[in-house]
């Protein structure tokens, strides 16, 4: 399995391969899937987008410039302020200093940039300290300023009520939300493949039992299920513990869908000639499953996973909306969307809706990716 996967990119770019026909004849199923997938332009592009997002997740603190937790009344609801790239025709990225004043009639704080006060934007500047990859302590960020605290200077996407920088919060939220999705899918996948596989391969009483379990879980509306479980989490748990628990809760429902897919494929494959052939030639059950059956529906699973991920991400935002998911001071997309979910945000600070954009992009990307993978997973179709 692993060496097949490793040769994939090589096989596609190698000029040494002889004629196309020959390639197809000797290609493994995964290679075929990959070739077909590459033709699906939208899915291919989506795959790249997904990779980019995971890169953001990995380098979140580096890409953020302000401390995402730093609050100040004097920065409440500042609209996005762009970077000025040129100063009198010369390339010199800078931002204007900003002054604010609460209007006595409207009670809004009116902010005005002061074009006479230019603050240079520096690359690889020092800011709040964090641990890169959770290991190396550093305070270098992609951008920053030398003059004053960066929290008071740069507002690429504006600030929220508490004066926290939305750009920086979005970066950090990406890490949490994407990994919740990934972890949730991993758990679902494990449960789904295990139980779905057992159910499909053995059939009989075990199948009936597992199918009943799935039916029961799917018959209970998800919201009460979530609410009950999430509300029952011990409150003394740390953010990390709650985070893990939330992932488990979300995947508790997610696995049933995967189990169905896996079981369906098993049922279909069990009757296939090559499985029967393997059985007749005395291969062990484990070998049949791992060596013959899993590879033939691996791409289906990959597709199912990439379709399950966005559902997990949406679930996380929904739980936050209900006040049951991750809660501040944790920063996730759900937490950020909750901040945007009120009238004053819509009216006074519509830029808080930017939080929805990465959610939308990622979910679209995963869906297109999943669709492309599924189309590709059926190479003879």
């Amino acid at each position, binding site marked *: 399995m692993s060496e097949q996967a490793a040769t994939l990119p090589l096989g596609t770019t190698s000029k040494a391969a002889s004629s196309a026909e020959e390639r197809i004849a000797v290609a493994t199923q995964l290679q075929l899937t990959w070739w077909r997938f590459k033709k699906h332009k*939208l899915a291919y592009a989506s795959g790249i987008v997904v990779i980019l997002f995971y890169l953001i997740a990995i380098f979140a603190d580096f890409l953020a410039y302000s401390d995402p937790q730093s609050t100040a009344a004097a920065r409440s609801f500042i609209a996005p302020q762009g970077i000025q790239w040129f100063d009198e025709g010369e390339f010199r990225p800078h931002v204007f200093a900003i002054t604010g004043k609460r209007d006595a009639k409207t009670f809004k704080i009116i902010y005005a940039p002061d074009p006479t006060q230019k603050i240079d934007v520096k690359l690889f500047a020092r800011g709040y300290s964090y641990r890169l990859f959770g290991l190396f302590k550093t305070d270098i960020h992609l951008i920053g300023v030398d003059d004053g605290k960066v929290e008071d200077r740069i507002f690429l996407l504006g600030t929220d009520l508490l004066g926290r920088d939305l750009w920086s919060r979005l970066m950090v939220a990406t890490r949490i939300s994407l990994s919740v999705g990934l972890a949730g899918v991993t758990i679902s996948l494990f449960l789904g493949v295990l139980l779905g596989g057992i159910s499909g391969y053995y059939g009989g009483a075990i199948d009936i039992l597992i199918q009943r379990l799935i*039916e029961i879980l799917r*018959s*209970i509306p998800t919201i*009460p299920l979530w609410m009950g479980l999430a509300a029952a989490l011990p409150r003394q748990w740390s953010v990390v513990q709650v985070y893990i628990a939330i992932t488990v809760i979300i995947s508790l429902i997610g696995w049933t869908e995967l189990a169905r897919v896996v079981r369906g494929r098993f049922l279909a494959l069990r009757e296939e000639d090559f499985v029967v052939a393997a059985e007749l030639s005395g291969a062990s059950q484990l070998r049949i499953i791992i060596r013959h059956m899993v590879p033939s529906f691996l791409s289906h699973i990959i597709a199912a996973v990439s379709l399950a991920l966005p559902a997990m991400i949406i679930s996380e935002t929904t739980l936050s*909306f209900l006040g049951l998911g991750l809660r501040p001071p944790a920063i996730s997309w759900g937490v950020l969307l909750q901040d945007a979910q009120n009238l004053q945000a819509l009216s006074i600070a519509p830029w808080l809706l930017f939080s929805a954009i990465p*959610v939308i992009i990622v979910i679209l990307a995963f869906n297109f990716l999943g669709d492309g993978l599924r189309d590709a997973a059926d190479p003879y*179709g």
Partner: protein
Amino acid sequence: MLAYIFRRLIFAAATTVAISVIAFVIIQLPPGDFVDAYIASISATGGQVSLAEAEGLRIQFGLDRPMYLQYFAWITGVVQGDFGFSVEWRRPVSEVIGDRLWMTVIISVFAILLSWGLALPIGIYSAVRQYSIGDYVFTFVGFFGLAVPNFLLALIILYFSFVLFGANVGGLFSAEYQLEPWSWGKVWDLAKHLPLPGLILAIGGTAQLIRIMRANLLDELRKPYVVTARAKGMRESRVILKYPVRAALNPFASTIGYLFPFVVSGSIIISLVLSLPTVGPLLLRSLVAQDMQLAGTIVLMLGVLTVIGTFISDLVLMWVDPRLRAGLDG
């Protein structure tokens, strides 16, 4: 065949019992009980409750009894058609739900019809014209609906429909019809209020349907009989509509059974944001207030509907697909 149906019925009944127990247990899971929630809501709205009074309430509502006794008290009633008493609404559960059931049915059916009406033609088009610009546009729009968190969308639409068009804010009736008995005017008023929540509710499901329809139809179109029909010079519209579309619809027919519970539980948050008088917000509220018998009944109701739906779907599927019938004993 009959034996199979009988066996499935027994499974369905067992599942139902399991759901009722699980429903009751999950609702009980959070610490505290209705009286805690009640004191909190009273004091948060400027009232006060004394400790003695709180204990009195616990006894009055039977909350001092162990959980299994509370469950049996409730389920015995349910079997006899008495769903218990909602401690929050201080009315019998059947009345509280009854008030809202019709509105829930109306709005859910409307949303389902809307999403089918949109999804099927788009799905067929996307499959037939795979990778065309239209396919991409529709898929994108469909997925967009899926990707936008719908609770956010609901509030945004609500707010801007007021700001831009001065529309009524939430609910299903204008103020003047709120208290009126049913009349043509009230029906028309309802009809005017339906599209917005219906559309928001339909948006998420539509994308899903488009995708399934497109995938199913694509599978069918690749089959030899379609190729044969084309080769024989059949009109393209007939080639597609006569058999492949029907075949692709089969899996849909099988989902009819549990569409309703699915839409109801999927719409809880939207209904809350839009303040719709449906079962959704009722469920959420009863869960927060730990109004056990009301929450339990709604969860049970949705669960039973799903079980029945699944049962019917299986029967339908078996009816249309002889291959499945053959494998029953496996």
